[in-house]
């Protein structure tokens, strides 16, 4: 019971096999504390993205058990998956913004679909964009924004519902070094609110620069876990 309170993400003997026999993850055991920031490292094909997909239930594990905030999410129906995703903010390498919507509308959409009134969602989206340095760009369409700006919009969208967890899959993969730096600083800042952050990246230099705890995956297995699990509120 105490573990359930301390750990935000727990994986027990989790495996994922894609048909017919492609083993993406094998016997993963992980515990990530509340408010912890963790880098998931490893080369392409190591299983980083698959692991993230299991956490927001884009994929179902073939074996093992996954707990998010103490709740078992291993087997969920579509309603359960929708509820889980409201607790998780997602940031992707390719931003995944809707080109026909403005930056503000992209962010507000995530709040509106979970029932926040339009006015409130727009106000909140604007506040977030302002905090992320996009005060003057909130009406711009994504394609008119730079890569770094687009990723900031995506981060704002991930944060608009105040999720306790943020999962970021190669968030700096499409950015120049300066924008990547900016994005990483933002993600670290989010952590100050007590948000648990899991970042998948193959960029070891970046991880070394900002890294706290790093879990290295190799061929679908945990090869290294370079820091001990940090309890709630503790510094890495």
């Amino acid at each position, binding site marked *: 019971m105490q573990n359930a309170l301390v750990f935000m993400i727990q994986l027990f003997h989790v495996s994922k096999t894609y048909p017919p026999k492609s083993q993406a993850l094998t016997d993963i055991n992980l515990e990530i504390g509340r408010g912890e920031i963790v880098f998931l490292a490893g080369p392409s094909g190591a299983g980083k993205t698959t692991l993230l997909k299991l956490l927001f239930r884009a994929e179902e594990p073939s074996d093992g058990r996954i707990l998010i905030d103490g709740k078992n999410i291993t087997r969920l129906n579509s309603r359960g998956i929708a509820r889980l995703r409201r*607790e998780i903010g997602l940031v992707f390498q390719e931003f*995944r913004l*809707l080109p026909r919507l403005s930056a503000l509308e992209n962010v507000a959409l*995530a709040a509106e*679909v979970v*029932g926040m009134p339009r006015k409130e969602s727009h106000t909140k989206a604007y506040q977030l964009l302002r905090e992320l340095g996009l005060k003057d760009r909130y009406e711009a369409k994504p394609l008119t924004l730079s890569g770094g700006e687009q990723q900031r919009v995506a981060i704002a969208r991930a944060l608009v*519902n105040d999720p306790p967890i943020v999962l970021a899959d190669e968030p700096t993969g499409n950015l120049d070094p300066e924008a990547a730096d900016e994005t990483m600083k933002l993600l670290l800042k989010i952590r100050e609110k007590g948000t648990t952050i899991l970042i998948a990246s193959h960029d070891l230099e970046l991880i070394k620069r900002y890294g706290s705890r790093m879990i290295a995956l190799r061929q679908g297995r945990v090869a290294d876990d370079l820091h001990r699990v940090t309890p709630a509120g503790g510094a890495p």
Partner: protein
Amino acid sequence: MPIGFVVRRVRSSLRELLWSHMLTSATMAMSLFVFGAFMVLQENLQHFLTGLGDQIQVNVYLEKELAAADALRLLARIRTFPEVERARHVTQEQAWRDFKAALGAQSSLLDGLPPDVLPSSFEISLKPAFRDGPVIAQLADRLKKEKGIAAVEYPQEWVERLSLVVLAVQWLKWLLGGVLFLAAFFIVGSTVKLAILARQDEIEIMQLVGASEELIQAPFVLEGMIQGVAAGAFSIACLWALFQSLRRQLASSGGWFASPEQLRFLDLESIALLLVIGWLLGAAGSLFALRRFVRTWKS
């Protein structure tokens, strides 16, 4: 469910895919128009038959030996039958007079015949609901069993043929309507698929941020319903225009159809039925397309 959000999505989809939505509505309207045209035809045939039905009567010929008091008692009894609207007693004298009048100039042919050669009879008119062939046949059988009745006659062939025409129109309406509705159903499904494909990125994002399945599906179903009701309304408007033009032409031709004002358009119930069919077609077509896509999303 955030209704405002659903309405905004429907509005923007209708705007973005206006032509595809209009084409689907027009196709549905065509199916509904054909169905509605059969409804108008059936309605008018039925009306025409009701008019003819007033002329359909059952003639009951009485035995010559039947006393006048017994004939009146029998008439009173027949008037209590549920099928009977009116029943009139035609005495032998009246029958003779009517026959002579009908022969007109040739009435001299009857000279030398006794005036009681024709039997007295009852002329029975039936209520509209009982003017069907089989019902009349049953009534005739029942009458034949009554004491004092020598024979029962009714225009069997006419009644049966007219009933058959109405039945044929009714069947044709559903048969043709069914085929057209099936086609419309698949066309709606295809439009919704198009709308889904056009918004796939948005649907994916909505799923990733935790939108419920109902919220994702609701706008598409609503779009289908709007298309269906619009198609229903459009088909009714076209039917009305065609009906009015036909009526005007008939009035100006002054030909066989003397009183075009007797032509009847769809009543309110039939209009509501067309709108409901359109609404259901739209909703069902959308749900059918979504069912297949949702399966894809889950896989």
